[in-house]
């Protein structure tokens, strides 16, 4: 009898112990997250306040989207490898600016933290992987809706094929005799009707385009030519008409001449037909993700959640329509 009692007691202790470890505090069947002597803070109260209030619609949408991306485009080892390569490239650019690897890494860490978007290097790498997953999702949509996306892209991003000739100068505001002479020669050849491509391949100092007859490829409103070359290059590239050559643009370390090879819708379409992860069609439209989202089959088991997500997506698509009307 005594033995049975001891056994029963021990078993109750086990249940109590394991129960406490797993379930946390509950009161009236409700989970309690915290309390003060004024009252309890129930899990349900926290859920209610966390899921409502400022920006709760956009953060809910982002969460659902993230889960959808993880489900449909899970991170693969290839993606992780690509993200690692991207990270290495960023780190290398820092290494060129700092005297030691340690300093470069510390500067990168500090920049990532101050951006407010990343908590650590590993968080940054994780988000790089996510950005690839995200791009895969958009790419799938663009491939499936190529014509409509391209038509919209052509209207919104004013794409054109552009070429560039760069004449290096240590101080463009006071160029040396030889720098001046080289620039003059390029201008004279173009005036004489020599093709822009052939002049670029012979005279351009831009190593990244020289071997491609100066071609920058397709340039649109999302370009970053100002960062790569000099302020004003982007605006000039987008202002040129098909076949037009620009005047000389003076940068901080070179002179630039641009040429618009074509603005033909069909020619550019051909160029962009092969949709890769680097395609401008994936990035030109900030609202494309809402179109993509609507192509998935989503059921909502909660009326509030449904209303919130759908209203948010609708609002964003309305803003997209307005943007196109205003264009």
């Amino acid at each position, binding site marked *: 009898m*005594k*033995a*049975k009692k*001891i*056994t029963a007691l*021990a*078993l109750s*202790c*086990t249940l109590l*112990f*394991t129960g406490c*470890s*797993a*379930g*946390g*505090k509950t009161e009236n*069947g*409700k*989970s*309690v*997250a*915290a*309390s*003060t*002597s*004024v*009252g309890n*803070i129930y*899990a*349900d*109260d*926290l*859920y209610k*306040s*966390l*899921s409502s*209030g*400022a*920006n709760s619609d*956009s*953060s*809910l949408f982002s*969460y*659902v989207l993230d*889960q*959808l991306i*993880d*489900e*449909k485009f899970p991170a693969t080892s290839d993606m992780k490898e690509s993200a690692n390569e991207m990270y290495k490239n960023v780190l290398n650019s820092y290494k060129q600016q700092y005297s030691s690897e340690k300093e470069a890494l510390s500067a990168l860490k500090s920049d990532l933290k101050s951006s407010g978007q990343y908590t650590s290097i590993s968080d940054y790498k994780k988000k790089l992987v996510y950005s690839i997953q995200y791009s895969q999702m958009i790419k799938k949509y663009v491939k499936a809706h190529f014509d409509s996306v391209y038509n919209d892209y052509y209207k919104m991003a004013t794409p054109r094929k552009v070429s560039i000739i760069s004449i290096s100068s240590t101080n463009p505001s006071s160029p040396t005799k030889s720098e001046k002479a080289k620039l003059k020669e390029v201008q004279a050849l173009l005036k004489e009707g020599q093709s822009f491509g052939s002049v670029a391949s012979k005279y351009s100092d831009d190593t990244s385009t020289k071997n491609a007859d100066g071609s920058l490829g397709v340039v649109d409103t999302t370009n970053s030519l100002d960062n790569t070359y000099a302020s004003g290059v982007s605006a000039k590239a987008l202002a040129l008409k098909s076949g037009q050559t620009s005047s000389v643009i003076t940068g901080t370390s070179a002179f630039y001449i641009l040429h618009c090879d074509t603005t033909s819708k069909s020619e550019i379409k051909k160029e962009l037909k092969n949709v890769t992860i680097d395609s401008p069609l994936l990035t030109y439209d900030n609202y494309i993700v809402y179109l993509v989202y609507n192509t*998935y*089959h*989503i*059921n*909502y*088991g*909660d009326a509030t*959640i449904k209303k919130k997500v759908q209203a948010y997506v609708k609002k964003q698509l309305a803003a997209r329509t307005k943007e196109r009307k205003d264009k």
Partner: protein
Amino acid sequence: MAEKKTTTNEDLSGFRQVHKVEVKKEHHFKMTKKIAALIIVVVVLIACCITGYVLTKDNDGYQVKVSNNKNIVSGDVTISKQKYFEHLLSTSGAQKTVDTAYNQIINKLIPTSKYQSQIDQLVKSKEKTYKSYMGSLKSYASAMGYSSTKEFEQDSVIPDAKKDLLKQKFFTDHYKAQCKKYKVAYIKAITVSKESEAIKLIKKSTSEKAFNKFMKSKTYKSNANDYAMVTTKTSTSTLNKAIKAKLSTFSNMTKDGVYGTAIKQSSSKYVVVYVYNTDKDANKTKIVKALADLSDTDTDVEAYYLQKYNFTVYDKKLKKAIKKINKNYIKD
């Protein structure tokens, strides 16, 4: 002595040997109820420990559970209410728990019915400031992510106003202790290049009027500064380190007047400090307001009330995150 001990041991071992040979012991194990129960207890306790260890080891999940867990999203992706809740907890759950607990305390200590006019006054003043930022309150509320000004007022402006009132109450109730803690002092200072010049100024600054006259004079105007209230929370970019190091002395002064020593700064310049508003009782209203206006004192006040009202967090992960925000929010 040691020899004697050895002999005794030898004797005993001899006895044991003899005893072993001569007496045949029968050690048959008998499973009694007592032994069975004991074994069960031991096994159960071991199981207990293992279960507890497994459940708590590297447990990065939340223990806190939302009611009516169900799938809020299904189809191409499935998301449960609990999963979404845990996502919300991991992004801003710690701060929200602190805010909720603190608001409970605020509502108890600053009941709207009793403080309505003060709340209204503060809300009006805050909304005026927000309006000045973006042209209208609606634009500001929208920029803050609120869908209406009413929602913004209820969720943010009124709670903030009540928070301010609780801070004022705190500094009023604990006035002397807080003045001491933050080393409250009112100072104005003139910086000069030579020690002899500083000493001359100290000698001549026989009254506040005289010091003010020097501050306004052509010679010292560009190097004179009225810091008003300074505390331990005043940044060293505002208040020179060498002056800040003397805060305790300034704060303890009971009579207005010039500090008798020229303070040497690291820049090799000298500072002459005039301390005023030393009568803390006479300046209580002003000092309480100034202390309450310091945003740097927010967390100290919050920690005080949260501890006083036994803020307890039952979820380990949530507790860890709250401790990371401020280790003083929770007692243990």
